[in-house]
């Protein structure tokens, strides 16, 4: 007995001594912070974080692979303790959430059972996952089984739905899904997603300059989820009320239904849900990422500036808007007349954006009242220049500076600012674009008896939107086509009395494919008018170049006075200055400016985080995915598109009341059901292999 006891003691001792020496000899340096971090994790070894146990998670935090908030069940105190160990700000950790990136289409109703197989993974193994859509959801619920937190459920349409309140962002569902339907991303990552060449995009979504997920929001409207549709639009476009009214909807010209039938009235549906939110009396809360402590100055509060500010704020940056005019909105306030976009609507929309915590300073002009130097001194790390294009082109004919002569944007903005203009009784607007039409329709509402539109080509070549031209015809604008102004004639008081123009005829087509107008000699004609408005285009006003800051000299302009930039990243020739909107592109659409604002926000975000400002990989930007553009579509029964309700002509002209009205709910639902849900076809059990 004693012998045995002694032996065991001896053996144990020997092993102990060998091990203790070994631990000295084979000691591996381990960051002491790993142990400290591990102490502050929950210690449940649940694997919810995606690492093999708490010590692996602690190691990942210390090596910088994971954020202090890695532990999904840790308390806020635990997270801030971990952040303290790492010397990091706990606030910068943004929560990740799972979401179903497949918006679903008309999914085949019956599930396919292959020898009893009921898992998505098996489906993908057996058939290589080949089905109509390469991302199509199989709908057998592997993700539901994978979720340890009960956050994923199978929705009634056979697609997984994620409960945001339960989801901890562990990524188990993402790993379980063989088709990459479920993705785990932070809100910032979702906000900064841009169309890429390999994305399964419907033609409308490829075309939209703001890259709104159009089929998704139309689907939500179909399902009666109007506020959900608003949120979908807000992921890409913060100015949905304005866009819903003034957007010339390039998406509709690519609509696949439009090949065989009339296109879906996409923009009216946008306006319908936008108005629905406004009239519901409550704003949908908009989430912002945790504060990053970085400051950005947005110069100009037009659509590009507002869009950029909105996205930067949602990414957690501190944003201030600087505006030279008395009110925010830029061209959409001062260039678009009230009968198209009422002031109270715009005010409501801008208020919602400012409510995110964006400061605004009005009545300050960049380059005059403040400049790059003062912004840097105030702690702004990046500047967004969205100053727009406010300088009207001039005709270059004698007499165009006489009293009674105006330029388009100048007149519209003065009127929108509340100035009372003396315009007499008759007026001529020179030009054929949207600004010219806006000027003509505005003047009719200001009580003028006769308004002419003088354009050097014919109606067919007018660049203004068709609906605008039709509305101006209805309201009584008189068109003088094939007329080139040559002289403005004034009286002794230097006030306009006549516009002299030369009649033209159409000749050979020019580079743009439009037939070139040629003057008919000796055809000078006089038009008796009190006011002449020239609206033949604008360029950016470059007074900001007066900024005495030495770096301002580096800011290059193009020969059209637009700010030189990298077209993919929108970074200007000064690395911390970014630009978009009319200031970068020349006069363009509101929705272009909004898309540009978001793209610039992405670059600014990269810049602020010290990353390289690189373009989006395989960015689609204005290009089309060729194979998705069809020439014929089978099986379409034509159904008339919803007609936009309008104010009757006799009620329009005595006020600036909005002309275009919103669709009623039943018509909107009918219109939403005209959508073909392109590129959203899912797994079809009849096609086993493709």
């Amino acid at each position, binding site marked *: 007995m004693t*012998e*045995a006891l002694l*032996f*065991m003691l001896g*053996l*144990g001792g020997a*092993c*102990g001594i*060998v*091990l203790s020496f*070994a*631990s000295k*000899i*084979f*000691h*591996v340096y381990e960051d002491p912070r790993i142990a400290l971090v591990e102490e502050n994790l929950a210690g449940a070894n649940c694997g919810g974080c995606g690492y*093999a*146990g708490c010590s692996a998670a602690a190691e990942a935090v210390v090596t910088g692979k994971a954020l202090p908030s890695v532990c999904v069940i840790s308390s806020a105190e635990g997270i801030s303790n971990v952040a303290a160990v790492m010397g990091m700000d706990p606030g910068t950790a943004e929560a990740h959430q799972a979401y179903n990136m497949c918006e679903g289409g008309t999914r085949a109703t019956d599930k396919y*059972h292959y*020898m*009893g*197989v*009921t*898992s998505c*993974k*098996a489906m993908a*193994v057996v058939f290589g996952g080949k089905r109509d859509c390469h991302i199509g959801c199989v709908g057998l619920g592997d993700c539901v089984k994978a979720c340890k937190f009960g956050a994923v459920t199978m929705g009634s349409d056979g697609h997984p739905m994620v409960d945001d309140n339960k989801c901890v962002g562990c990524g188990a569902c993402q790993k379980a899904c063989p088709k990459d339907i479920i993705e785990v991303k932070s809100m910032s990552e979702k906000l900064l997603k841009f169309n890429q060449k390999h994305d399964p995009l419907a033609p409308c979504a490829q075309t939209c300059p703001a890259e709104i997920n159009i089929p998704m929001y139309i689907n939500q409207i179909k399902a009666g989820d109007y506020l959900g549709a608003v949120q979908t639009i807000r992921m890409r476009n913060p100015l949905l009320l304005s866009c819903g009214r003034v957007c010339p909807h390039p998406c509709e010209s690519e609509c696949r239904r439009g090949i065989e039938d009339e296109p879906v009235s996409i923009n009216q549906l946008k306006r319908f849900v936008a108005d629905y939110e406004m009239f519901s009396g409550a704003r949908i809360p908009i989430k912002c990422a945790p504060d990053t402590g970085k400051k950005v100055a947005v110069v100009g509060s037009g659509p590009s500036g507002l869009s950029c500010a909105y996205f930067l704020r949602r990414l957690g940056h501190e944003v201030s808007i600087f505006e030279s005019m008395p009110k925010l909105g830029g061209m959409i306030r001062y260039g678009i007349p009230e009968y198209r976009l009422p002031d109270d609507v715009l005010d409501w929309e801008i208020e919602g954006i400012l409510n995110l915590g964006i400061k605004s300073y009005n009545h300050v002009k960049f380059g005059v009242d403040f400049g790059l130097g003062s912004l840097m001194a105030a702690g702004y790390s990046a500047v967004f220049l969205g100053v727009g294009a406010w300088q009207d082109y001039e005709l270059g004919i004698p007499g165009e500076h006489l009293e009674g002569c105006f330029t388009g944007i100048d007149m519209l903005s003065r009127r929108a600012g509340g100035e009372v203009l003396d315009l007499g009784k008759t007026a001529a607007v020179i030009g054929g674009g949207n600004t010219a039409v806006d000027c003509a329709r505005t003047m009719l509402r200001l009580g003028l008896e006769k308004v002419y539109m003088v354009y050097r080509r014919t109606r067919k070549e007018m660049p203004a939107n068709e609906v605008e031209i039709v509305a101006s015809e209805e309201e009584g604008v008189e068109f003088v086509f094939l007329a080139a102004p040559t002289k403005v004639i004034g009286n002794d008081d230097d006030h306009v009395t006549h516009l002299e123009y030369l009649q033209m005829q159409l000749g050979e087509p020019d580079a743009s494919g439009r037939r070139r107008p040629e003057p008919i000699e000796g055809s000078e004609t006089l038009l008796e008018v009190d006011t002449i408005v020239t609206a033949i285009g604008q360029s950016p006003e470059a007074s900001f170049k007066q900024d005495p800051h030495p770096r301002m000299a580096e800011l290059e302009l193009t020969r059209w006075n637009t700010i030189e930039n990298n077209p993919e990243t929108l970074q200007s020739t000064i690395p911390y200055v970014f630009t978009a909107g009319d200031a970068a592109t020349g006069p363009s659409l509101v929705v272009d400016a909004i898309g540009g604002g978001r793209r610039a926000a992405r670059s600014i975000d990269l810049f602020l985080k010290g990353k390289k400002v690189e373009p989006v990989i395989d960015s689609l930007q204005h290009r089309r995915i060729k194979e998705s553009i069809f020439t014929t579509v089978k099986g379409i029964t034509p159904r008339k598109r919803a007609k936009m309700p309008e104010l009757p002509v006799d009620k329009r002209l005595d006020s600036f009341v909005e002309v275009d009205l919103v669709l009623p709910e039943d018509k909107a639902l009918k219109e939403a059901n005209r959508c073909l849900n392109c590129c959203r076809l899912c797994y079809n059990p009849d096609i086993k292999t493709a």
Partner: protein
Amino acid sequence: MTDYFVLAISCIFVNNILLAQFLGNCPFLGTSKKMETAAGMSMAVVFVLVMAGIITWITDTYLLKPLNIEFLRTLSFILVIASLVQFVEMFLKKSIPGLYAGLGIFLPLITTNCAVMGACLINIKEEYTFLQATVASFSYAIGFGLALVLFAGLRERINIARVPQPLQDTSLGLVTAGMIALSFYAFKGMV
């Protein structure tokens, strides 16, 4: 030479540690859900079992037998194997980090694995020489790995099939294990 070959065949197939001796059932069921895990586990077992076979043979021959305290065999083997695994873990972490990362958490898991322990005790019971003990340990480990990987492959396929609720997971696992064991029974006539 032929003797060693016969010994190896007998240890791998005929007396397969998992399917004939029914030792080491916890890792057999616990780590056989995924092929990846099963392969990692098998590697670790090969590594540890060879080392343990050698060290326990030495302990038994040069300590227990001369001192006439063979009744302490089980107890002292536990101590020796546990210490050995700890030692090897520290050594690998410092010297061969690649292998350490590969074996991962499986090394400490098999500290007190009954398959390892059982194989060591069989080595002594059969009165193998040092070389025989080494070959036998290695072969037992290979047998372990073979069975585990086969089983994991089957379970991966079963996992995507429709299985009645009461039979799911471990229940069907045990049934499957029994059937593989039956098929291994056919090796009985080989040696």
